[in-house]
């Protein structure tokens, strides 16, 4: 099936998310749609999938113009989509999820579970998925849930499969497996639209690459194009992909975590006996797939956790049991992973957000009073220093783009002297230009002598910044390794393999699809 998008334009109010986009997906090709967060990739795919109606332009399949009123029409036309946030009902079984909306019935309206199970088994065996049709979706790991989504699309005879940021939740090894699956699907004649902002993966798997920036197609490229070139197409200017970093010169220990365990509100142990040190002047990165206890570990350190045991000391002083404000006042800065929820108050102004932790003390407040003029003056300084693109410090934080919101959070946290800077996913959903800026600020904070604890699920970011790397898996620290540890070793450790075994296995297996690029880069 040949899929064409012709001149698709989609506006939201005065904002043009897609500006007359043309895209051709040939049969059996893996077509990568590359662009930053907010470039309009997801909007385009939602138009293609019938979730949004385009203002202009048309979708053409095998030379015929089609019109989709809803996802049902798109599915009927042979388009399948694996959403970034999986569209699976957690309390349903795999088989029930696969047949939802496309039910197998007997005797008119009654569900035919046997047929659905059979279908899941058939597709699962054909592509080597190993999926149990009777398992509840909430009980299976994320990687398997993704396969269920793929089965769901294939069961509906998808000829074009859209994968929206499919690797965000996967370990590097799972990503390799996904790439193998994509190749196999391609062999069987399925076209794939692969949406991502990860240059490395694009180069590993795509046949053709279309780059989108600010809602427009800015060009196409072939997979041989270098990462630097792709990045500059994506951002619109030359981007430095590596961070300039002096060798680190660690001082005394600032943060000492010993035997820390955290239980969640369901009573499960989510952080399990973690011990970790961070010295002044070094960046320790916590690597790991999302949901392996990183969030809870960090929240325990900054005083937001609840059911915690163990010890957390800041320059020798026990801080476990102190509340967040006391910990802030001891010189801990914190960038939470979900900025719109925990980092900012979106309905407050940029200026107010910039003094959120300092509003009650001089010079911004005294006694019961609060001094807006001083807040505003300070905000203007910080907005300049951190290059926050805003209409003014009186604009609401909610009106800023993701990258600029993040700059506000980072500016606030870095605007006072710190002993420890904790950053959780500091560049998630942030444009490449801002990533560069934020990375440089984090390194500057390190060089300034602060201890930096960075949590990131992006291995690229970990490798770019970390002096040492602690890998977490299922609430435990699998190992702490040097900042220049090879990617495939880290990948194995992220799946729970201890360091020594990981190094041995990595040496035996040789380079994978993704690491081969590192080799190329070195040569």
């Amino acid at each position: 099936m040949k899929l064409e998008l012709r001149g698709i334009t989609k506006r939201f109010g005065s904002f043009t998310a897609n500006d007359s986009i043309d895209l051709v997906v040939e049969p059996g090709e893996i077509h990568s749609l590359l662009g930053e967060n907010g470039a309009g990739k997801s909007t385009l795919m939602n138009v293609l999938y019938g979730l949004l109606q385009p203002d202009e332009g048309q979708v053409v399949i095998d030379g015929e113009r089609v019109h989709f009123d809803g996802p049902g029409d798109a599915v009927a036309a042979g388009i399948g989509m694996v959403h970034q946030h999986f569209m699976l009902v957690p309390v349903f079984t795999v088989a029930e999820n696969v047949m939802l909306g496309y039910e197998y019935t007997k005797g008119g309206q009654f569900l035919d579970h046997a047929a659905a199970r059979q279908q899941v088994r058939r597709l699962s065996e054909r592509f080597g998925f190993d999926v149990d049709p009777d398992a509840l979706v909430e009980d299976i790991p994320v990687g398997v849930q993704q396969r269920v989504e793929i089965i769901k699309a294939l069961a509906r005879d998808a000829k074009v499969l859209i994968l929206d940021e499919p690797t965000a939740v996967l370990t590097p090894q799972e990503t390799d497996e996904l790439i193998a699956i994509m190749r196999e699907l391609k062999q069987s004649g399925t076209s794939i639209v692969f949406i991502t902002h990860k240059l490395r993966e694009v180069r590993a798997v795509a046949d053709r690459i279309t780059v989108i920036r600010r809602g427009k197609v800015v060009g196409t490229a072939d997979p041989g194009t270098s990462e630097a070139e792709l990045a500059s197409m994506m951002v619109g200017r030359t981007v430095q992909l590596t961070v300039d970093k002096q060798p680190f010169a660690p001082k005394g220990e600032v943060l000492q975590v010993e035997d820390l365990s955290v239980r969640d509100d369901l009573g499960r142990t989510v952080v399990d006996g973690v011990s970790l040190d961070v010295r002044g002047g070094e960046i320790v990165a916590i690597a790991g797939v999302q949901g392996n206890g990183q969030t809870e570990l960090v929240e325990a350190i900054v005083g937001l956790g609840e059911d915690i045991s163990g010890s957390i000391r800041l320059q020798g002083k026990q801080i476990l049991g102190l509340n967040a404000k006391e910990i802030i006042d001891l010189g801990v800065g914190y960038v939470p992973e979900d900025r719109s929820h925990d980092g900012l108050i979106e309905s407050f102004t940029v200026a107010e957000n910039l003094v959120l932790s300092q509003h009650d003390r001089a010079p911004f407040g005294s006694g019961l009073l609060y001094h807006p003029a001083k807040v505003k003056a300070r905000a203007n300084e910080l907005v300049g220093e951190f290059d926050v693109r805003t209409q003014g410090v009186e604009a609401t934080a909610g009106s800023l783009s993701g990258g600029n919101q993040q700059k506000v959070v980072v500016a606030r946290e870095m605007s006072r002297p710190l002993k420890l800077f904790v950053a959780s996913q500091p560049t998630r959903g942030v444009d490449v230009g801002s990533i560069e800026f934020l990375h440089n600020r984090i390194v500057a904070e390190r060089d300034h002598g602060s201890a930096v604890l960075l949590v990131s699920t992006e291995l690229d970011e970990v490798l770019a910044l970390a002096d040492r790397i602690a890998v977490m898996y299922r609430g435990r620290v699998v190992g702490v390794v040097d900042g220049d540890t090879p990617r495939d070793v880290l990948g194995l450790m992220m799946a729970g393999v201890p360091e020594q075994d990981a190094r041995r296995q990595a040496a035996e297996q040789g380079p994978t699809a993704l690491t081969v690029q590192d080799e190329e880069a070195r040569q």
Partner: protein
Amino acid sequence: MSTATRERLPESSTIQQGPLRKPPTWKSPIIMGVLGVVALLAFGLASNAGDTSTFGMSTGAQRLQIPALVLPTRPAAIVLSVLCLVLAAVAAAAVRVKRPVPLAVPIGFAALWLLAFLVWSMAGEQVPLPGLLGGTLLLSVPLVFGALSGVLCERSGVINIAIEGQLLAGAFASALMASVTDSLWIGLVMAPVAGLLVAVLLAMFTIKYVVDQIIVGVVLNVLVVGLTGFLYGRVLVQNADVFNQPGTFSRIPIPGLIEIPVLGPALFNQTIIVYLMYVAVIVTQVALFRTKWGLRVRAVGEHPKAADTVGIKVNRIRVQNVLLGGVVAGFGGAFFTLGSVGAFGREMTAGQGFIALAAMIFGRWSPVGALFAALLFGFANQLQGTLGALGSPIPSEFMLMAPYLATIFAVAGVVGRVRAPAADGQPYTKA
């Protein structure tokens, strides 16, 4: 930023170890154990050794007459209490292996415990068992209809607080229309129409205009109370023989089935409304869990966006289900007038719509579960009447509290894990 709220959950809960289900707590086995011991001590060991409790086993409508069952009070209460303790042990065993306690355990426990209480308090007396069970059934009929309405709405993701209003509207319309037309059948048809009208308002405000579901429900209840109260005072009372004398459906004994010992006369010598209830429970149960329609409804209630992406019209299903829920609750309303009292009275539903919501939760959002929960509430209610008549040692004021105490315990989670449909109460809007 409601979308952000919702998207945040799956992200932070993608922990890769085992089920996300909350492990069952020791709360319910412990409470059951304590209550079991209380029953053993108070009803069993403390009762007089020589007393007997007599249960009548047959009614005059049956050809086959079974002699009354004469139980020695003390041994019978002891046996029932021990059975309670056995169920508590079953619950404890389930918790120990981190399995959810089956719904039958707390419901069975409550029934046995109440029986032990009954046996103890009717020492030296006689109670007809078919009458007791039949009364239980009748008291639970409006609860069952109401709870079914709740299940239909909430499984699709809309909270229906307006059940009370729908019951009352059904009761009013059936009484009025049956009186005016002099036909019980027309009254029975008008009851669901009235429930439907309330549901139309609920669907319009909650789904189309995305008003808070709880607030709309409460307002509709107040509206129906006010409207029926006004019309009752101004019209029905003024001219009762024209507007408020519908009469009641007569009982239809089902040949054959009525001969079943004890249960026959309780279950199969009832009015058409009760038989309709049986059908409604079975149809809803099968439809929700065995059909294409049911799978879609449940998907809409759990994860509407997922349903949308496979081409299911989320809000259309929700509207359908809310309207269907109104129809079902309307039938329940007809029971108050055409099925039991034979006339409409001001606010005659007396909060049964809310107890029905409790039955729905107790029954874990399943029709059959709701039926048994409603029967349990009905039993507690019936017991109070029966014991009041016997002159029980317990003050009747306390007995009046029993069904409500049972409700509070049920809703407070003593019955174990209760999980509402994930998208219950959340309006669905695109983008």
